[in-house]
């Protein structure tokens, strides 16, 4: 499974949403019921995929696609990452 798909699937699980709701253009504010849930999702995704972002790297991220792309870029830049979801 591509990294993009794995991240999106895990995001759907954490947000309690169906995958088809998480369209790339969907605003995070629309698909997330609370800002705390979004924060927890970000923390869990970082743990799962073995990446760590500074808070500033999330500035300007407003859509599902942007968030997923951020993780994908990091994973592609660090092919030897060790996260809970590493295969």
């Amino acid at each position, binding site marked *: 499974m591509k990294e993009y798909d794995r991240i999106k699937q895990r995001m759907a699980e954490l947000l309690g949403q169906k995958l088809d709701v998480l369209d790339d253009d969907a605003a995070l504010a629309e698909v997330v019921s609370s800002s705390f849930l979004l924060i927890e999702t970000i923390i869990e995704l970082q743990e799962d995929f073995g990446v760590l972002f500074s808070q500033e790297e999330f500035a300007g*991220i407003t859509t599902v696609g942007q968030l997923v792309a951020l993780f994908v870029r990091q994973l592609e830049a660090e092919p030897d990452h060790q996260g809970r979801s590493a295969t």
Partner: protein
Amino acid sequence: MEQNHSFRDLDPVQVWLHRPQERLPGRHEQSELARQLLRVALSSVGIRLDEPRISTPGTELIAWLRQEFQLELSITHCPEIVAIALGRERLGVDCETLGTTRNWQAIADYFFTPAEADVIRQTGVIQQEYLFLRHWTLKEAFIKTMRGTIFGNLNDLTLENGKVALITTGDIKQWSIWQAETGNCLVGLCYRQGQIGKPAWLECVDLSAGSYSVCVDLDSSAARIVC
């Protein structure tokens, strides 16, 4: 009791509150309720908010009030309360409902300063949520005042021993920072100290009737956070 406030009564700030009879878990319902409260709040100062204006996105509404009436507005909502702050200086308000199970420590470790995260870590589990949300509502209120985001601006305001220890964007003494508790909710308020005086806390009990009363219990429990 109904009163007609004039613009001068907005000095320094009015905070309007409404607690729905039933908990509203969805953001959409919360937002709808906030708009109804806003209509009541603005009508008290002689501003009508009808369709389609009331349905415009929040950022557009805020910009319209600022341009047309030189009014500053901040809106916040959570499952058990909606709140609106109105004034003539830059301001921000945030609310949170207690009673949710989350990994507060993990969030604090990632988003707060190390010192703040340590304070929360040293607190017992029962009080951890309360202490976390006290920090959070004040930080968010300040972020809203400065039109920042939680990603990157959350520590522009930090807390130490219950006092504001740092505001990275200017002189602390320019800011007036308050925290109030009502029912199961915490409310944080922040505004530029353009005027002397303390905020008015107004609770609207029945949105359909537009009746409101001075929220006496908040008057006594709303505490100014010392800078």
